[in-house]
């Protein structure tokens, strides 16, 4: 995987702070067109599988459905035929590089799912995060692939930047209908947005005149996610004593990790900064890293106390 462009330190720090990474127009149009042909079939394959197993109404899965619906735990490289839409998408160098940077070169497929929001479907799904309360700091990623143009109000996924480290379970956050700074995806065909598994999101109303199709792929890491990106500029930018009430240097990772979101309570923003620092410690294998001295001062005080 030496030939794929790895993420930069800035991109990784932004992912840690905001819980997502947006890659615009990275999938070639030919692959997007193939996805528009194949993805609805992938959804039907899942429906058949679900109905067959749940209600006993289907046949045993055949080789074709095995190929279309990889079993959880299949190494990504082996999960999809190289000429299939998903197989081609994950081999796009920019996508492969982002995957390698976040979960390594040998992640396994958790599952994929095809989400279709039909034209005129005005139902607003409740805000949720996928799966349950997943313990950190290791994390999965989810690729949201939009193979066609999505105009504003045409069913682009709603998501809440900076929500990924809040400990909530599934749709226990559905009560929040409007949060300052939330986004509704819109963009060009071939855009992939990579979510941290904990990011709050929801299917949005489609006021447009065409169905909105999105392919989602969840990947589990199989190795520590430590320094997998292009770390060539990390060392000089990784000061652990960057402190907004003392000395700050330009270009530090800390500057990205202390950014707030419009929906954050000021007091919780400080805790978010701490939790981002802990995640950055995991990603860099640097237990001394800190932002604004929150962890350092308490850890040093704790070390003074004899158990």
């Amino acid at each position: 995987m030496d030939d794929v462009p790895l993420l930069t330190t800035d991109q990784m720090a932004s992912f840690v702070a905001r819980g997502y990474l947006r890659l615009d127009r990275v999938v070639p149009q030919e692959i997007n067109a193939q996805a528009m042909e194949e993805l609805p079939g992938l959804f039907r394959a899942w429906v058949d599988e679900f109905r067959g197993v749940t209600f006993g109404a289907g046949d045993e899965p055949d080789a074709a459905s095995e190929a279309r619906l990889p079993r959880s735990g299949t190494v990504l490289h082996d999960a999809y035929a190289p000429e299939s839409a998903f197989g081609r998408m994950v081999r796009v160098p920019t996508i492969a590089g982002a995957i390698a940077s976040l979960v390594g070169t040998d992640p396994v497929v958790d599952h994929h799912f095809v989400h279709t929001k039909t034209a005129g479907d005005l139902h607003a799904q409740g805000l949720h995060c996928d799966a349950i309360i997943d313990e950190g700091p290791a994390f999965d990623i989810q690729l949201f692939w939009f193979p066609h143009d999505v105009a504003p109000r045409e069913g682009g996924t709603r998501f809440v930047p900076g929500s990924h480290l809040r400990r909530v379970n599934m749709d226990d956050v559905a009560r929040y209908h409007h949060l300052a700074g939330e986004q509704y995806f819109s963009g060009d065909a071939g855009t992939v947005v990579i979510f941290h598994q904990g990011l709050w999101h929801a299917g949005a109303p489609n006021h447009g005149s065409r169905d909105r199709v999105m392919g989602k792929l969840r990947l589990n890491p199989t190795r520590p996610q430590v320094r997998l990106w292009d770390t060539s500029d990390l060392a000089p930018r990784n000061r652990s004593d960057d402190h907004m009430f003392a000395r700050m240097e330009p270009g530090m990772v800390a500057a990205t990790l202390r950014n707030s979101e419009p929906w954050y309570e000021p007091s919780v923003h400080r805790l978010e900064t701490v939790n981002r620092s802990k995640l950055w410690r995991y990603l860099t294998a640097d237990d001394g890293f800190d932002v604004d001295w929150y962890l350092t001062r308490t850890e040093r005080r704790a070390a003074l106390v004899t158990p």
Partner: protein
Amino acid sequence: MMWLASPSLDSRVLGWSFFDGTAGAGPQLTADPPYASGVAALVDGWRMLQMSPLIPPTPGHERDTSFLKHEFVFERIVDLADDATSDPRFVARVETLGH
């Protein structure tokens, strides 16, 4: 419902939801957010029903973050004209709510 930046009712609105007991026949909220603070909602005639209690952090989880902390619930009673509730569109909306 509104979620504010602090436990103080005059602090900034971070998020809001509107649950419409008139099924669309009553006055609607259009601004985003509908009010700049909780106090602004009081001034406009809303009654506050509930606010989040201030609960000390759970030992061992002091730095966990989760739900928005400062939740305020407001209510406003409105009178609906007879012709509003007999409007077929109103009846249809109520039907979709499982009334």
